[in-house]
């Protein structure tokens, strides 16, 4: 409907009362409506822009700023943000008298000054990650050329100046430029050795413990068997067969125990070998040390292997900055988190989110389609089916946390508990399936998104014209043939729409996951190289939960904030990617079938 109406073309002067005409046009209300729409649009795009800008700029290297305070204290760090504030009287009173006068003179008459938050790092030395620097206390602000930013494996960032590069405790060079050059040469091999040692620790030694554990649990299972037969023997009053069964079980148990003991001996030997290798790597790494000086003169030596990344931010060219930016993104997307999730990467969370969403989709589509097919094609239309339809529709509006509560009580405790009692008695009392797990999270979310899939599939089935079904029947096709060859293909785009909606909802849900399996830090991915490859009983990390955890459970929330923004950007990215993929799939399917329409 074009908005230009016949009325508006009527010349105004022909109206008896132009004032009323103005009111009839309702222009003020129209503007309020337009304003509401504009506000909504501004909010959406403002929010997206905020996330993109904040999240996208996290990894860009910021110059290191050195601030000299009035009392001579030096601070070196990255400026995180500036904000206006009004200093309190106590703040001035705490200053020494000569500084106080200068500071008070510098504060404008309205009492509003500003301060900047400096990320000063060096937590192991100062016990602080950040420092507030009020503008009225600054005496000199510089960007020293050779200031170094060092991201460490532990203790967060280090800000300081290079002093020397040591090899076996002897300085290789004292020239600053030379130090950085030599550092760049020696760093990569040191890190490679570090990674190798980590890999041995994780796969080698970790694998040995897994193997041992497996054997121990096997022995324990046989011991339980044995006890079971002992019980049986007592019950059956020492019957012949029970005695034989017990003897067999006892023998099996004895063998398993022997195997376990033998294995642990072998493992202990292997472990010694691994440990020797690790020691060798670490001895080599201990030879290379970077000697640094903090801005207040404290010297600190850092082994090269402990340094994740080091650069002199004030000397970076644009391309070098871009390189670091890219490198940090790469680390973020592919590495494990460190420093209680505030640094490093989010690879396990990305992996967990996608795997969980895919598993959920695998579960939800068949069941949703079955239910919809039944309701639309097989069940007799009547009051009952329409009541069921309303109920299913309503379930789409039931809060997600309710599904989480159901998942925890039913899937984890009851279902998982029964599985543990039946199949994993040797692991009790520590639960295997009777706790939050990937499979329960996927099932819970599948249940949560089931109504969405049912509703949209049903709509898609209803939209297939009856003439096509009748045509198919007239050609002699059976009901199932009609559904399979005629109805389902045409309804496919609609089913896909349902799946898209389900995935978008499922990937972004966090509340139920908090109850049924998402954890702060999962030591192992739920999908890996050890049989049976997919481990549905493992907990997993999730991007949404990661955001919650980083923003609200983190010790160092100020340092976590940029990471939260980046993770948010990533989560929105993942959800958009899932959506775009599904939309692309739908349009492909639609194109395939659009030609087949009558």
């Amino acid at each position: 409907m074009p908005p230009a109406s016949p009325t508006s073309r009527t010349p105004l002067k022909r109206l008896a009362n132009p004032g009323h005409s103005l009111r009839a046009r309702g222009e003020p209300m129209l503007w309020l409506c337009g304003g509401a729409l504009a506000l909504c649009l501004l909010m959406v795009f403002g929010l997206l822009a905020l996330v993109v800008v904040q999240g996208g700029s996290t990894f860009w290297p910021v110059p290191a700023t050195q601030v000299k305070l009035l009392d001579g204290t030096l601070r070196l760090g990255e400026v995180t943000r500036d904000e206006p504030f009004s200093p309190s009287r106590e703040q001035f009173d705490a200053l020494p008298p000569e500084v106080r006068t200068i500071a008070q003179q510098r504060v404008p008459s309205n009492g509003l000054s500003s301060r900047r938050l400096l990320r000063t790092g060096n937590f192991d030395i100062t016990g602080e990650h950040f420092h507030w620097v009020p503008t009225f206390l600054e005496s000199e602000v510089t960007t020293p050329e050779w200031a170094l930013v060092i991201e460490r494996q532990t203790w967060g960032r280090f800000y300081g100046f290079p002093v020397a590069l040591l090899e076996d405790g002897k300085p290789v060079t004292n020239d600053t430029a030379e130090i950085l050059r030599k550092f760049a040469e020696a760093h990569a091999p040191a890190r490679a050795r570090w990674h190798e040692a980590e890999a041995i620790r994780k796969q080698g030694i970790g694998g040995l413990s897994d193997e041992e554990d497996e054997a121990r649990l096997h022995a324990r299972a046989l011991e339980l068997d044995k006890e079971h037969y002992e019980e049986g023997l007592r019950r059956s009053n020492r019957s012949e067969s029970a005695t034989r069964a017990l003897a067999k079980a006892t023998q099996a148990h004895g063998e398993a125990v022997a195997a376990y003991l033998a294995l642990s001996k072998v493992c202990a030997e292997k472990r010694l070998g691994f440990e020797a290798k690790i020691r060798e790597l670490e001895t080599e790494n201990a030879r290379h040390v970077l000697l640094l000086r903090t801005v207040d003169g404290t010297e600190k030596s850092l082994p090269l292997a402990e340094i994740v990344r080091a650069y002199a931010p004030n000397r970076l060219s644009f391309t070098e900055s871009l390189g670091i930016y890219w490198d940090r993104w790469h680390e973020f997307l592919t590495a494990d988190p460190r420093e209680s999730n505030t640094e490093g990467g989010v690879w396990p969370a990305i992996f967990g989110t996608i795997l969980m969403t895919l598993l959920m989709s695998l579960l939800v589509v068949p069941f949703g389609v079955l239910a919809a097919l039944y309701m639309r094609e097989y069940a007799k239309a009547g009051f009952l089916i329409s009541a069921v339809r309303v109920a299913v529709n309503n379930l789409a509006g039931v809060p997600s946390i309710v599904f989480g509560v159901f998942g925890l009580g039913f899937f984890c405790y009851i279902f998982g508990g029964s599985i543990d009692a039946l199949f994993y008695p040797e692991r009790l009392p520590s639960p295997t399936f009777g706790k939050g797990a990937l499979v329960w999270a996927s099932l819970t979310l599948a249940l949560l998104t089931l109504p969405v899939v049912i509703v949209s599939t049903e709509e898609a089935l209803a939209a297939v014209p009856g003439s096509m079904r009748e045509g198919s029947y007239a050609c002699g096709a059976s009901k199932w043939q009609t559904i399979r060859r005629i109805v389902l293909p045409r309804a496919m785009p609609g089913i896909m729409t349902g799946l898209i909606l389900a995935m978008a909802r499922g990937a972004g849900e966090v509340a139920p996951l908090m109850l049924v399996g998402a954890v702060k830090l999962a030591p192992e991915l739920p999908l890996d190289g050890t049989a049976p490859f997919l481990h549905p009983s493992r907990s997993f990390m999730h991007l949404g939960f990661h955001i919650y955890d980083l923003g609200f459970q983190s010790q160092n929330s100020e340092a976590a904030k940029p990471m939260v923004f980046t993770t948010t950007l990533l989560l929105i990215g993942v959800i958009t990617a899932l959506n775009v993929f599904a939309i692309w799939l739908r349009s492909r399917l639609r194109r395939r079938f659009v030609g087949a329409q009558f």
Partner: protein
Amino acid sequence: MASFTGQVRARKTSRLVAWSDLCARTAITFGGIATIVAVGTVCLFLLWVVLPLLGGGSAAEAKTMALPGTKGAILCLAEDPYRHLAWLLDEQGNAVAFGTQRGEEIARATLYAPEEVSCVMRHEGELLLGRKDGSIQFCTVDLSSDFLSEADAPAAVANLEVGTTQIVGDALYERTPERQLRRQQLRVARQEMVALAEGSKSSVEHVDFASASNGRVIAAVTADGTLHLKLSSTRYDLMADREIVTLQGAQIPLAQLEPTITTRPDFVQLLGAGENLLLVWQDGRTLRIDTRDIDSPHLVETLDLLPGNDRVTALATLLGKSTLLVGDERGDVHSWFSVRTAGATTQDGKVMVHARSFPTASPSAVVSIEASSRSRLFTVGQADGTIRVFHGTSERLVASTNLLARGELLHAVLSPKEDGLIAVSTEGVQTWALQPGHPEVTLRSVFRPVWYEGYAAPEHTWQSTGGTDDFEPKFGLWSLIFGTLKATFYCLMFGVPLALLAAVYTSEFLHARTRARIKPAIELMASLPSVVLGFLAALVFAPIVERSLMTVLVAVLTLPAVLLLAAQFWQMAPPWLRNTAEKLRLPGALITVPIGLLLAFTIAPGLERLFFAGDLKGWLAIGTRERAATDAGSAFGGWWFAAIPFTGLLAAIAVGRLGGFLQGRWAGMQRLGLGMALCLALATGAALLFTAIGWDLRGTVVGTYDQRNSLVVGFVMGFAVIPIIYTIAEDALSSVPEHLRAASLGAGATPWQTAVRIIFPTALSGIFSGVMIGLGRAVGETMIVLMAAGNTPIVDFNVFNGFRTLSANIATELPEAVRDSSHYRMLYLSALCLFAMTFVLNTFAEVVRQRFRKRAYQL
């Protein structure tokens, strides 16, 4: 028969096709029904978990046995946690342990000689003996358990099967489910005797003690009418290799406390950690003595526990020693505790109040009241053998039973795990298996205010965990439901107008091509995960709003004002320009909105200085007392701001009705000016009036500012529900049949008139269902409130403080709740409430939408 093509065709359906058809039918029917049933299970499962909350407890009689050999009255009775053994103490000083299956005695120890001790008090597993020579002595008697290795065990129990017990010698052995061997024995330990006071040889008549942080507070009344109040401290003497107990404190003659006292009290009871001492006479007369300063106790309150002529026959305290239970000779039990009230005239500002009564059906005297050591349960034993188990806070009668054994009931005690009950009469012992259920939860205690001990008045409180052992969990769901409703209210206040106005504009005044781009953009909001919105709310918006609260509030006023102004300018443009530039209105609004925000930013500091002395948050924080004193505390500014939206509406109506006299090119401007002037004048008038009356907005809907508050949550949650309401409302508006629109326009109505009088009413039910579904979403939203609402469960209408919703509460507490505990089931009840609320809302919306659809078809 040959067909035209010459090929022979089968006339029968091939077996494969028929088979697959049957299989598909079965699979789909089965799978479909199973899926639907599975979805329906959610509700049933929640119900299944919740239902035991409402069921009562029960006591099933297990065993009756003869009394093991004792002499005289039974002073104490206690059972072991595993319910195999019990011990009792008779008047002669014999502690006798016996099996509770057959009643056989297994061990016996003599605690004291009968002629030495005059009274015994038992509390938290310790016995305090008051002796005739004026001294006291602490003892412990318990059934200790330890685990034995197979080698140390006697041969008789080597082949004991799992779950069975055997008595060997003076110990009971049990094979636990973990196949360990557990031994239980009677163990008696005595501490040093200590004289209450130097030279005092008067017999101790009543004694009580309580554990304080720095020792044990002991109160005793001796036969010479002296009250001894002592703090005992124990230290270990290395030289003598024994513990030395020292007492320090005061002793005062009772008459010195209160001159009217002539007799000695019948009960002595310490409260709390020894902060108060009650001296109770049989007629109910009670003195409450402040004993916080152990050296100078003083009388703070005199009261009558039993108005009327009834006599007190039993006295006890609930776990935590804060609630006093008084049993009378007619069988009723009353609970009392002290509360701090504003109007108290006592020295310590507290008064003892009569909180609850536990009436009886059988009028015989209460002989025993025994409190549980793990919750607020207690047993009441009456002289006629009636034994009842009550919960002290919820008043629920958990179980009621009768003594079958002969003789007169002496004691009825709960077992340590509350899974059993044991009673002793003058002739025998009887045990019951008890299932207390969830006695602390009743429908009343969940949805009505509950008077918890120490609280000044009944309150809605949710407090599921506490730091101490005697903490009482408080499950008042109303504070959480209130939080949920509060969040929903503010969310809809922001979201509904915005979404509906935007939907009307999109469906009626936007070009189809623009609409096709804008609608998905708003729907994009729906796919933003709520955890993202919650994080932005808490870490980005909340600090911004905190820093510039005034700007945010002013923007609520300036945005419409600026838009109205823009509309007036627009009206003044010549008609030809307006008609050709119709498309420019939205871009115009897009520019105007930031201008409005900028305006708010500019004028906010000035307004803040003008109305709130430059500090809005300070103004909000000023309490009732300071208000009158300071100028900044004037209520005027608050009223003025609160009045503006209402007077603005009034002014708009007034100008619309009466503004016809304004004509010509500038009429719109003049009207706007008039309207704004009227609005401001009315607001000032109203504010002056209310201030003069002495009303103040603070303490009602506004109050002290918290960083995480309803305003921020309302804003961000509004953001979350806007796309849902917008989409459904827009669909409803767009699906109004085109001929209605055409007819209205053809009859000469303007597009605005068409939209408001034809389209909007027709689509109303669809729009309504959109709002309902938005409401449902707001009710169950979890992450935003979890992160941005502060999570304090309080019932307060203040916009500027936080709250805790049902959903956030579940998310924070369920992972820690012990499975199948009352707490766990209460959280399931919260989930069930959420389920019910949203289900009802959605069904309602669905029904309305169906009606709308039918009506739209009819048109």
